[in-house]
């Protein structure tokens, strides 16, 4: 356990260092634009699977959290000209509160009802923002980037590094949860909530915790997006495609291990980036849907499950 911890943190440090060096060495701007999107989806998928994967509550409301992240940045910039770290932290705080509200919903509903409720949350918040004049309403709003902070010499490069940092934070949190009592408790309540409750697992507290953490991370990931696009509109920020992509990436990668969503997100969003450039953005949504259905039908455990099967150490309980 200890050794894997050292390996993990070394890997994370190397990853961040590589991302930083990349901003210094690579002159072309395109890798940062594309890389930002990939990293964003990695972070979203990892954050999503804390609730969706470990606890088994399918959250269709990724777009709600993402959009709230975007718009809390928009509001802070427009009202106070707040700097990026403040935007992200505020978004995380709001996301945690939203997560808490979502967690309270799980008290009364499970399965499909919970999922539908999360879509409802997304649409309701989107409608409210659409009617909020201060942040631009339905037409959207242009955002001016402030001058870039010193170690970086380009704003997109800085956002790229910030997103890399968010990825590391999300993965570290997810990994910690999986290896701690929280993860085991969530696993138990995923398998059988009633049985878990009866055996003394504090299911409510665990669910609230998972919702709060997942929500805070999802919102935080959305926050820099306003600066990245220099524009925000409700239709884009609350687009249900974020929910679909995140869900698909997590399930395709496999939710049994913290690395699953990372694999799924890298695989799918890189493919999508290539398809968007080479063919069209419609095709990439099609690929997303088809891959999701194929994996759910053919490889329910995702890439992780496939790899495990290939290695031969099949998990028990597959019957």
């Amino acid at each position: 356990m200890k050794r894997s911890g050292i390996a993990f943190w070394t890997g994370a440090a190397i990853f961040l260092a590589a991302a930083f060096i990349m901003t210094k060495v690579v002159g072309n701007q395109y890798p940062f634009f594309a890389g930002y999107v990939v990293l964003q989806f990695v972070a979203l998928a990892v954050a999503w699977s804390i609730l969706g994967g470990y606890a088994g509550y399918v959250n269709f409301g990724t777009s709600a959290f993402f959009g709230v992240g975007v718009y809390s940045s928009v509001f802070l910039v427009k009202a106070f000209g707040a700097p990026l770290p403040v935007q992200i932290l505020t978004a995380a705080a709001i996301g945690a509160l939203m997560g808490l509200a979502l967690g309270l919903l799980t008290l009364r509903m499970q399965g499909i009802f919970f999922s539908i409720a999360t879509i409802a949350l997304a649409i309701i918040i989107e409608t409210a923002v659409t009617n909020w004049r201060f942040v631009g309403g339905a037409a959207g709003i242009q955002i001016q980037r402030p001058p870039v902070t010193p170690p970086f010499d380009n704003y997109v490069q800085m956002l790229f590094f910030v997103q890399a940092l968010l990825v590391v934070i999300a993965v570290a949190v997810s990994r910690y949860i999986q290896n701690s009592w929280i993860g085991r408790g969530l696993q138990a309540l995923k398998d059988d909530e009633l049985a878990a409750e009866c055996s003394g697992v504090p299911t409510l507290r665990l669910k609230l915790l998972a919702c709060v953490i997942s929500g805070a991370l999802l919102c935080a990931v959305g926050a820099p997006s306003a600066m990245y696009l220099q524009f925000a509109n409700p239709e884009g920020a609350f687009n249900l495609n974020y929910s679909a992509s995140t869900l698909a990436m997590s399930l395709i990668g496999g939710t049994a291990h913290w690395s699953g969503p990372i694999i799924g997100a890298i695989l799918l969003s890189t493919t999508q980036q290539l398809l968007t450039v080479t063919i069209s953005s419609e095709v990439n949504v099609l690929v997303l849907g088809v891959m999701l259905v194929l994996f759910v039908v053919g490889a329910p455990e995702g890439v992780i499950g496939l790899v495990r099967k290939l290695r031969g150490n099949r998990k028990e309980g597959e019957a």
Partner: protein
Amino acid sequence: MDLLLDAVVIGVLLGCFYGAVSLGLSVSFGLLDVPHVAHPAFLVLASYGVYIINEHYGVDPLVAGLLITPLLFVFGLVAYRLYYETFEKRGSDAGVRGIAFFFGVAFIIEVLIIMQFGVDQRSVTATYIGKSLRIADMRIPYRLLVAFAVAAALTILLTLYLSKTFMGRAIRAVAQDQEALRLMGANPIKVKQWAFGIATAVLGVAGALLIIVAPVDPTLDRAYIGRTFCVVVMAGLGSMSGTLVAAIILGVAESIVLTMFGASWAPAVSFAMLLGVLAVRPQGLFGRRS
């Protein structure tokens, strides 16, 4: 005051229409417990089928809806078989993956429609579209009246089918106790497959109504996730007459919000009501489960 009366009348008509598009879901989700998130996508797909027939052969949209009904029935049979073989049969964890499956299917349908027809709105032509009936100061579009009449007829037919015919009763039996049906020597899966076929077939006429009432675009299904699920959950899973009543409540609420606060608030009404019902009275107004 007149404005409010107007809103209520339009709301009732609109509500009946919402009932018609929710009937299929009331069977598939309400009775069969299939997490059919793709129901609205199927509905929009049916509308495009109606659009093609109307555009090319000038057939009345309602007739066109009837024409594609057998096709949809078969489509439903196949879809349920696929769902059963891959999820229900395996049992474990069917919930999460079942939802994801239908979500994926909905997205595929959406994109295929976009690739084929583009993102523009499509509408149909018929003699009753575009004209209104005048009663005193009130103007009621004929298309809404047609939708209202057809919706009422469809609801009555389906209610009769489920309560009077042998197969209909079998469907309600399978919803109540699948194991008991198996012990009686019947095959519950066959019954459920048939029921899912019916639930999808109903979308032929419902899809026709959808494109009669307003132009249709590929992502319209997203708004109808809220409306159809709101209606079915509020009705209390699986009650046909309850579906109609719940739909009318939704229609009136939406119409009033539209009149008082403007169109930009309308999308939230169904979702907000859905959330409210789920939080306060999950068994619905006419729930079959206590």
